[in-house]
């Protein structure tokens, strides 16, 4: 296996004022509203394998159903419960933890498949399904399984499926949450092991179901063995809008030791890592891209960033010869007609 020198780790923390629930990706409720409040995600890339850790926050058992669909760069080989403090420790590195909002929302699980189901598993009270399919197939699967997709879902799912037809669908199983006495606000971290050559970070999905002028707030943490190149470019520290690079520095050994000491985190190096902290604050209408990372001086891929579709990266073929012939004949006819008109006027 190719050994990469760069180990990126990404933590996304979504904070939305309106409601409860959590998860990375679009979280949709029966009434069509998106109830994403806090998403925490860690993605680390070691030896061509992305370790993707995200937390799903339980918001209570009051009713309703929620699900989260997360685009993935490739097919995971394993889905397990993540460590106990990794995500929290990364957030605390840059700011004190914020209290989770409480709600009376509940989750339920179901299963069916119109997209191809690659994997099903349970992590604590979560039901997790890894899907492969185009945007329509995944959307159909989600609809058949009780996800209420907002009107921008078809376009967003197509946007991701064009690059990677792999998605993770996650829902809380209310019965298991009650059995485990899961408390509102309590998060369940999930660790995905994803062999891939393109460990991009999905950002556009965070705008799913939001009004165009609604501001998406998120924190993104990167850990690499060297300072990475990012696409899109980031704003200067202290900026009010955009992808703001608040920190870019050597990660402390204390942080790395804390992270590597967590359950399932032994793969993380404990020294010589570069920490980037990107704060996202941007209207949903402008969050029409993802985050691509270039390693060892490599320019990040516009396709990975969502600025170009994979299917359109090949230059278009020139028009066939007959098009040029017809165009030329048309031009000649126009010239002849113009000449006759001018001649008649003379």
């Amino acid at each position, binding site marked *: 296996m190719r050994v990469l020198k760069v180990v990126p780790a990404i933590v996304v923390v979504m904070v939305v004022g309106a409601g409860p629930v959590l998860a990375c990706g679009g979280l949709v409720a029966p*009434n*069509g*509203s998106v109830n994403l409040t806090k998403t925490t995600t860690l993605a680390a890339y070691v030896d061509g394998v992305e370790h993707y850790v995200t937390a799903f926050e339980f918001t209570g058992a009051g009713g309703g159903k929620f699900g989260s669909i997360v685009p993935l760069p490739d097919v995971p080989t394993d889905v397990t419960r993540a460590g106990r403090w990794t995500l929290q420790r990364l957030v605390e590195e840059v700011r004190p933890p914020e209290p989770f909002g409480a709600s009376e929302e509940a989750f339920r699980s179901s299963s069916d498949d119109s997209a191809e189901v690659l994997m099903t598993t349970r992590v604590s009270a979560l039901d997790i399904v890894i899907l492969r399919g185009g*945007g*329509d*197939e*995944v*959307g*159909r699967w*989600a*609809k058949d399984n009780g996800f209420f*997709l*907002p*009107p*921008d*879902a*078809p*376009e967003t*799912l*197509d946007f991701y499926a064009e690059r990677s037809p792999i998605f993770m669908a996650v829902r809380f199983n209310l019965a298991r949450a009650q059995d485990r006495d899961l408390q509102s606000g309590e998060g369940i971290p999930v660790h995905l092991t994803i062999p891939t050559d393109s460990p991009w970070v999905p950002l556009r999905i965070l705008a799913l*179901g939001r*009004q165009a002028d609604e501001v998406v707030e998120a924190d993104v943490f990167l850990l690499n063995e060297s300072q990475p190149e990012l696409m899109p470019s980031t704003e200067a520290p202290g900026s009010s809008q955009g992808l703001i690079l608040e920190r870019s520095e050597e990660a402390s050994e204390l942080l790395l030791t804390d992270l590597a000491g967590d359950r399932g985190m032994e793969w993380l190096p404990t020294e010589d890592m570069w920490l980037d902290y990107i704060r996202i604050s941007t209207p949903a209408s402008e969050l029409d891209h993802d985050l691509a990372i270039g390693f060892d001086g490599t320019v990040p891929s516009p396709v990975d960033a969502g600025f170009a579709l994979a299917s359109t990266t090949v230059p278009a073929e020139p028009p066939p010869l007959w098009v040029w012939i017809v165009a030329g004949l048309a031009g000649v006819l126009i010239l002849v007609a113009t000449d006759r008109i001018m001649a008649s006027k003379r």
Partner: protein
Amino acid sequence: MRLGPGLGLTFVALLLGGCIDTASAGHSEVIVNINHSRFEPEAFEFEQGDVVTFVVRNADPIDHEFILGDEAVQDLHEKGAHPSHGDLPGEVSVAADSTATTTYEFTEPGKLIIGCHLPAHYDYGMKAQVRIDP
């Protein structure tokens, strides 16, 4: 009554893959595609007295609806809670990956709107403009 909608509709519809059947005098058929929660085409022109059957093809994996009417009709449906449509001319629900039809007679000149009023769809921009010429 002229046969079929106006030239503008013909042009737009052909560009976007729709078609117009003017085989039966006074009664035309217009194909309306729904893709990514948008009506295609997004503008229509008809003549007063036209009777049009709209063939609404929903290519999305989510449900939509086709509601033809003026602003008041759109407001009513935006605030209402009709689970489905199909009984009234110009109003029909279109399930995911399906096709539905509805027929409407344009009795008055003016401007109407085609909209979808499932939650958040209208605000998302799921509407089309309809002009009826005398």
